[in-house]
């Protein structure tokens, strides 16, 4: 069992919702999905690689027959899966500090959600509804979301310079090379091991 692989942390959370509230939440997600500026805060939180919310209505748990018993539930459930860089505390702190309104709109329909501010009851709630990952795989254990974005910038700049490198005079090349270095200079951090998770 491990929620951690290299530089990423896998969080799973499940919270119960009264079924009539599920529709409000779905409505909110429709708006969030269509209005890109509303997603900007998620994008600016540069330590999230992938995240998803799945509304699971009580009657829609996969049922395959073959002796499986049908679920009999009163609540719908909200599943949350996140892949983030950094520490658990940093992640929840950041959510609470800068995304509290958005998070409240997502989780306030869940039973016993205390609100995302102040942070300690919020952390206690997340810790309670979090369930651990048995197996976690990442194709790039030594990279964070920032590393990925930087790497793509470096690649694109290198591709551009190398296309014309042969055609330049040395003086032209020196100038183009300097421009290239300046294009990539903010994106040259090394990839490597993650700090010890705490």
């Amino acid at each position, binding site marked *: 069992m491990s929620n951690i692989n290299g*530089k990423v942390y896998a969080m799973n959370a499940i919270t119960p919702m009264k079924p009539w509230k599920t529709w409000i939440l779905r409505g909110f997600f429709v708006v969030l999905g269509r209005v890109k500026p509303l997603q900007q*805060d998620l994008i*600016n939180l*540069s*330590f999230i690689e992938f995240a998803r919310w799945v509304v699971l209505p009580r009657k829609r748990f996969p049922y395959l027959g073959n002796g499986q018993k049908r679920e009999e539930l009163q609540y719908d459930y909200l599943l949350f899966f996140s892949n983030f*860089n*950094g*520490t658990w*505390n*940093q992640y929840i*702190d*950041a959510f*609470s*500090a*800068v995304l509290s309104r958005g998070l409240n709109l997502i989780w306030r329909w869940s039973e016993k959600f205390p609100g995302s*501010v*102040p*942070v*300690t009851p919020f952390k206690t709630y997340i810790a309670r509804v979090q369930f651990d990952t048995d197996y976690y795989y990442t194709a790039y254990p030594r990279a*964070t979301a*920032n*590393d990925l974005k*930087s790497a793509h910038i470096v690649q694109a700049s290198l591709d551009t310079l190398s296309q014309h490198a042969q055609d330049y005079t040395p003086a032209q090349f020196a100038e183009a090379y*300097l*421009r290239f*270095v*300046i294009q990539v*200079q*903010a*994106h*040259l*951090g*090394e*990839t*490597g*091991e*993650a*700090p*010890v998770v*705490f």
Partner: protein
Amino acid sequence: MSKLNATDIQGFVLRGYNLPISRYLFLHLEDASRGRKMIGRLLGQVTTGQRWDGGKPDSTVNIAFTHRGLVALELPLATLLTFPVEFQEGMRNRAGILGDTDLNAPERWDEVWRNGMVHVWIGVNAKSPEALEARCAALLAMIQETGGATLLDSQDAAAVMIDGKPTTREHFGYTDGFGNPEYLGVERSSQPGQGKLLEDGTWAPLATGELLLGYADEAGELPVAPVPHLLAANGTFMVYRKLHQNLAAFRAYLDEQAKLYGGGREKLAAKFIGRWRDGTPLELSPDKPDFALTQDPKRSTNFTYSADPEGVRCPLGAHVRRVHPRDDFGFHGKLIDRRRITRRGLPYGTFVPEGEPVLDSEDRGVIFMALNASISRQFEFVQQQWIGYGNDARQGNDKDMLIGNHCGRGRFVVQGDTTPENPPFICSNMPNFVDLRGGDYFFLPSITALGMMALCLVDPR
């Protein structure tokens, strides 16, 4: 927020004394009841945060305890268990988290920090060597008389003297001491750039609870603190680290790199930390030092990084940008307000001006002491994520140039522009300019809490 009771708070917490010399005594408690008696005797001597209307005293005394020290004093177990995990563990056991490995590993620390014997830190600051000696002699005589503790070791530190005057320089030649935050209720002349950034671009003091236990912090709640409340309130936690400086290695590396760097030696030195050696912030004056600026409290810390997202003026990985990223992570700086620390401490060892022979083996460095309400959330986070790692600064695994535990590896990227005076540049394979020689985590109680400890009046819940 109500006014702080300065008579209940150790003065060391509320202000840097600005006294030029100091000695830190490390004690081992021999016996709980004699130890309490010793604390009782010390109580009247502890310097509080009360204003010095009659002028500065000749010397000051402050006291703090490791968790093992509190155990030795036989505080109730139910109370001992309410202290934060990292404080209970102590700094040595957090070496993995802090990146205190390889050259900085605990096995390489000074003897006094390796054996786990330190229970008490007593900090004495003084105006003059005579005042220091007199105060320490009196303290040690009293300690001996009570039989409460033995002296394991002591550490002297003092401001670097230049032309006979105490300065705020450290051994590498940088001017230190610009970075301490302001807190609500802590009396101090206000300076833009030293608290937290607000949405309108102005600065305000941080919540008191980022420094002192018992008050609301930046998350709008009381920091994690031991129970009972009275034991915690008006206290704080202190990180003590003895940082040895390899001055010869630093100067040699700077010389060698400066040969390749078009901006010149002094600019390269400035790029390492984000300030010219006289303290001028690169962000405000990228081309040359401006001494007048450093002397102007309205300007010397008053800047943000939003106009320099690529690090052209102040490199993205420069020391001051790492440890106080201001608005660098967006959200008007809100992601950093719970990651600030207050620094105390002084250099130790002899200062050697540029050009004079110097050896790394000479005993020289800085005593780093950080005060914060939560060691894990504040100091440890900064040390791990911002000093020993670079992801938040978008610099991958790159470490802090000056104090990173490089062990001969690593990179530091100096971003630049197309002008020959400010070229982009990469430093590689850095030696350790700074080595950790030991230290620990301490609890700095209030005067009330010291009294409770002395009289054995701590009631658990």
